[in-house]
């Protein structure tokens, strides 16, 4: 990772100074000095038809990491991946949720959920769609960013980034990240209508989202290998298991995906 060229022309500095002067004129008099650092983070769903649950965003300093590739997923990642759960609701049973647990972590500065830019409402993302969040934090820290969402037409797939440095961004600079789909390793990838939560969200099925049972091939986080759909051509494969998987899958070919599955744009606004 490296910065853009540092050759900034005199006229650009003049333009910046002018702009800052203009902006300075309309600042809120009650604002605490020094002003906060503001980041704007956008997530774009680059899949064709994988619904992303509402997107959790965490600003933190060193010492926090939401997940580790190759390690066992914590309950909050399991809830995110299997059921798109981000935070404890009023009527929730006891447990751990990503934003709720992050809020208790001393390294975490801010937790938020991405919103639709026109309505301001927290939203999930259909394929090709995007959501955004504005993050205002006290200046001067070596901030890191975690962004996470569940992929709702998988059993336990999720995507995002964790512990990415953003403190180095100057005002006006941006960072673009492409994210992989991960398999939380917490639920077998049967892709049935009963276990893929997207069917409860969109097709009024009785699909179970979060299930505390752990029955995946192995109980650790891997890159997601993709989904088997009922449109899958199996050829003359004599693999009975594969055929059963195909026939039991509630997914169709539009739910397939390759890596990367999302683009995240981090802009430092001020």
């Amino acid at each position, binding site marked *: 990772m490296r910065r853009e060229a540092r050759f900034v*022309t005199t006229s*650009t500095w003049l333009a910046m100074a002018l702009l800052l002067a203009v902006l300075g004129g309309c600042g809120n008099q009650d604002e605490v000095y020094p002003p906060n650092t503001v980041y704007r983070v956008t997530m774009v769903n680059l899949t064709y038809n994988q619904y992303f649950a509402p997107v959790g965003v965490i600003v933190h300093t060193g010492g926090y990491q939401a997940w580790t*590739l190759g390690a066992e997923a914590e309950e909050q990642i399991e809830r995110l991946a299997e059921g798109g759960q981000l935070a404890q609701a009023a009527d929730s049973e006891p447990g751990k949720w990503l934003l709720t647990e992050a809020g208790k972590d001393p390294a975490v500065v801010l937790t938020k959920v991405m919103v639709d830019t026109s309505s301001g409402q927290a939203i999930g993302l259909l394929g*090709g769609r*995007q959501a955004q969040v504005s993050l205002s934090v006290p200046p001067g820290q070596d901030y890191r960013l975690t962004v996470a969402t569940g992929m709702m037409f998988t059993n336990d797939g999720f995507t995002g980034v964790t512990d990415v440095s953003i403190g180095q961004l100057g005002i006006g600079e941006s*960072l673009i990240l492409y994210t992989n789909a991960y398999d939380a390793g917490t639920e077998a990838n049967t892709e049935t209508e009963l276990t893929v939560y997207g069917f409860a969200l969109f097709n009024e099925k009785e699909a179970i989202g979060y299930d505390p049972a752990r029955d995946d091939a192995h109980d650790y986080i891997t890159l997601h290998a993709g989904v088997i759909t009922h449109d899958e051509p199996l*050829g003359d494969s004599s693999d009975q298991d594969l055929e059963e998987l195909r026939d039991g899958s509630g997914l169709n070919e539009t739910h397939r995906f*390759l*890596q990367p599955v999302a683009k995240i744009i981090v802009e430092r606004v001020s």
Partner: protein
Amino acid sequence: MRLRGLVTICVGMWFTMGGLAQAVSLTIKITNTTVAHPLRELLIVAHAVNHPLFVSGNAAPDGLEELAECGKQGALAAEMLSDDPKADVWGVNSYRAGVVSYPKLLELGVDNDNLVSLPGLVVTNGANTRLSIVGRIMLTNDGFAGLEAALIPLEPGTYTFYMLAYDAGTEANNELLIPDPDLRQTPPACVNDPYMAETKGDVTDDYLGDNGIGASGQEGSNPFITIHRGVLGDTTRDGGKSDLDYIHHRWHGAEPAPSSAVATVKVTVQ
């Protein structure tokens, strides 16, 4: 490495305009890494941050639709130069595009024809800090290989990038060949036909089929540029859903490239 799992990272400036200190000369080598999908009419562009060649998550403009569906780069090159006359635009085999006269297939097989090597591409404008490349993925409906606004390194050396398979979001992926050469349309009419841009005779490929009924009728629900979900294919030459083969016509990038990678780009900065 903390950023493990991320596909690519670039840091940029969208506010203040940095720039290259002096004209930079590039050698670009592009290798098709698919088994069975020639790339055609590659368009290579060095551009400013705020004049992208394409943006994933956005709807494809007409020129990109024509490139992805018809394999013609002229309209996209013209759009690019009209958006930013200072962009450096090169079509494969015709330096300084806009005058694209010798389109060349980038295909696997004979005489290293899977590799194009383009020396002496001079970036003439200091604001052109980004490199984007697109080319039609033959034997798809509206797939294109894309490098999206990679930061051109300032230090002399050779750098590796990956072109990913994108879906332009403009045509349903029915995976059907043009059944009769007489039905072939020229641009812009070819964007209205429901077929891939090729007839069986266009590509030497024993795995191509006939008389498919159509792999997918669904494209309308996601009109945006996404990562291509891959070819579905089928197991029969005659009939079936698709005129493509379920193994031969798939692509799957391997680490360190993401699974959607279809070409490797080596950029040498002199």
